[in-house]
Structures are given as C-alpha cells and as structure tokens.
C-alpha cells in the first residue's frame, strides 16, 4: 500500500508547528522566570551601567574635541 504523502505532510505540519510553538512558549516562560530571578537575586550594580555609559560619552567627547580642533584649524 502506497503512502499518501499529503497526509504525511500534514502530519509533519501539525507536529512541526506544534513543536515550534511548544518550544517558543516554554522559552518565553523560562525567559520570564529567568529575568525575575536575575532581577531579584542578581541585580546589576548601578555603577557598571553608568561606567559603560560614561565611557561611550567620553568617546563622544573626544571625537567632538578632535572635530572641534580640526574645525578650529580650518577656520584659522
């Protein structure tokens, strides 16, 4: 007896999409649990955030300074 491939394909679809959604739903739940745990028990130190921010800021300042220096030179 030959197989009806379309029926096979539909089975694949049901099982496949089911697994994809099952996986992603479990992932979403896990992400939420993880975030809650991390925010509760391992909060990020404030300084770490701001320091990176500062660094980026400093870089911007330096670039601004150099740009200004060049502009100044051109005008001069």
């Amino acid at each position: 007896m030959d197989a009806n491939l379309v029926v096979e394909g539909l089975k694949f679809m049901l099982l496949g999409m089911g697994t994809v959604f099952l996986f992603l739903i479990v992932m979403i739940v896990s992400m939420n649990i993880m975030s809650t745990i991390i925010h509760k028990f391992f909060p990020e130190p404030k300084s770490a955030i701001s320091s990176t921010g500062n660094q980026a800021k400093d870089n911007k300042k330096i670039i601004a300074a150099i740009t200004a220096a060049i502009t100044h030179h051109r005008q001069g």
Partner: protein
Amino acid sequence: MKNIILKFLVLFVFLGFTGLVANENASTVELSAHKEESYKTQPMSTMVMGFLQSTGISALINPDPNELNSHGKTMSDFHKTGGRVIMILITFLLFYLAIKKGFEPLLLLPIAFGGLLANIPVANMAGPDGFLGIIYHMGLSNQLFPILIFMGVGAMTDFGPLLSNPKTALLGGAAQFGIFGTLVGAVALSQYTNIFDFTLQQSSAISIIGGADGPTSIFIATKLAPELLGAIAVASYSYMAMVPIIQPPIMKALTTDAERRIRMTTLRHVSRLEKLVFPVMVLVLAILVLPESTPLIGAFMFGNFLKESGVVERLSDTMQNALINIVTIFLGLAVGSKLSADQFLVPDTLAILALGIIAFSVGTASGVIMAKIMNMFPGHKINPLIGSAGVSAVPMAARVSNKVGMEYDRTNMLLMHAMGPNVAGVIGSAVAAGMLISFFK
C-alpha cells in the same frame, strides 16, 4: 655577470636550434622505462588538432561523449553544451543582482563565482580532484561550514530586544508556518499534479527556504536532498535579499492603517547576566525538547555565549571576522560547485524557486497574522508590521518592518521591537529544521 648570462643565452639558443634540426628517428638516447610512460609522442598536426579539440569552444560545441558529471554519471549533450552557457549567463545575472542590486553579495558573489567555475568544461573543478570539489568535501558534505557560519552569526547576534519583550518570540514561531505549509503544498502538487515530483525529503529541504536562514537551508539540504543543494541555496539567499521587495505588499495587504500605526512601549534595559544565561537556557531547552536541533542551536548559542561572556573577546572577534569570512568564501564556492548545468537546469529548479517564494510569502503572512491574533488578547498591543520580521533574514526583515512602519508614522521606530521576532525566527527555524531531521531518522 653580463658575460655569463650572454654565454648562457648563446648555449641555450644553440641547443634549441640543434634540437629543431635533429631528425625524430635519429634519436638513440635510452630512456629509463618508468619515465615517459605517461606521455605518448604525436605528430604536430595531431597535437594542434588535439589542442583545438581541448579548447572550451570545441568542448562547448562538440562535447566529449564519455564526459561524466561530478558524480561520475553521464550527462545529456545539452547539459555539456548550451546548458553550461546558460548557467554561466545565470551566474552573470547573479553577479548583477549581487553587485548592482545589493542582493546578499557576501554569499551570492562566492556562490555565483563558484557556479561559473563549476560550469567550465574540461577543467572539471567541481569534480573530486578539482579545488571546488575539495572544498565541498572539506566542509559542506559534512555540514561543517554552515555550522561554523552559525557560530559567527551567533557571535554577531544581540538577544537583548527579545529578552526585553519575550512574547514577540511567538511571531518568530508563526513565521515557520511558511516552512510546513509549503511542505504540504509541495507534496500535494507532487502527488496530485504532474508539475513536480518531489519526495518528502526533497519537499522538506525545499520548504526550509521559508525559514529565511541561509546556513539552516544549506544544513538541511545537505542532509536531506544534496542533489538540490545548489538551487535551494540560491533560492534561499536570493529571497533573503529580496525581503524589501517581497514583504511590504504582503504586510500592507494584511494590516489596517490603524494597526500599522500602533506604537509599542519602550524596551526595558536587559542586564548582562540575562544575556549571558539566555543562550545556555535556550540550548538546555533544545536538549530537553528536541535534541536533533542542538547542532544548529548549539553552534549559534556557542557564538553568542562567547560574545556575551565578555572574557574571550579575541575569540568572539575572530568568529565574527576572520573565521566567518574564510568559511563564507569556502561555503560560497562549495555551494556554487553544485550549480552545474546538469543539476541546476532541470525543471525541479523552477519548482524550487516557485515553492521557495511561496514559503517565504506564507511565512511573512503568518507572522503578521499571528501578531493580529495576539492583539485579540488583552495586554500591550503589538504592531503587526513586526510580525513579518519573524521569518528571520536578520537584520533585513527587521529593517523592512521599521521602514514600512515609518511610511505611515515617521516617528514610530519599530526597528528594535522587530529585532525580537527576528532573532526568534532564527531559533524557530532551527527547531523546525530539527523536526525535519527527526522525521527522517
């Protein structure tokens, strides 16, 4: 110094002329038996004829009847002659699309050039002793190259947007309907019509184009239907490149003006630890739910984990640059080696191109529709335009969401919101790929 050289020259010219004058029969020099056995002397006229017959023009006009393809099978005369010319013209078209139209040039250029080289008669570069064949067997037939690309892509990926709005992952799931829907369509058309005649494995390999992930497509094609690799890879990268053309009409057809103007809330800050735990967490889930997906997800998360660890920057840099670039060159050439006329110029290729764009379009539509379904439930509304980003094609699909959104409200920036479903689409496709592998095990 000058004298020595002049003497050398004189000696050399003298000897040359001596040889020219010498009669062929006069030679009495003994040759050791083991030498020369591979060389048969021929009259000059025969040699010239032989040379003329070995030119590409001759090979393209009067093909060698005994010539075999890179798998050692016989080829039709068309595939040895006009087919090659057509394939070379197709690679020129790909060059044009890659360079002038910006179609994923990083992969399409090496693929197309590999295809050009693979279609050269006589040289047989795609054969087991040619350099394309060597590269193919080095890393494509064993699926190493797509895995390494996945590592590099993982190291370039930022899961922050997904972590700050987890539920958008569902959009990346819905878009996989493009894969499975097309699978059903392909087998249905194979069974009930005479248009195509694909097996389940082949249909599965084709439908993965809807996943909009080049390495995943190549990985699955090599596993399930290596004979279709060239066409699937070209279709996959071409359609990924055509995201800005394919997606917007579908997105607009399925959404109302009000929906397109939905504003999403600002993304929360994601801590470094969350980003660090996430790749391992997803991998553990993949282990528990679907181990067959772990080679792809594992490689992806390896790259991401190394990046997020922050302690092995030099490895992460190398993955994102030298390693992925080298592998991209090799992968492209190896895929291109499968663009030989006898494998590409078959009706199946057209079917693959047609099914591929259906898969892509269905995936796009499914993502948008999923967003609309999610909006039926209470909670923060999702702008359905980010649903299309669920197909992956990172980061272009997300940029398309952003661009279409700004067409209707110039202040509505959807880019970061669309990155969530975008990267979730990569995970979703890897899960779908794992399912396809497990079906045929």
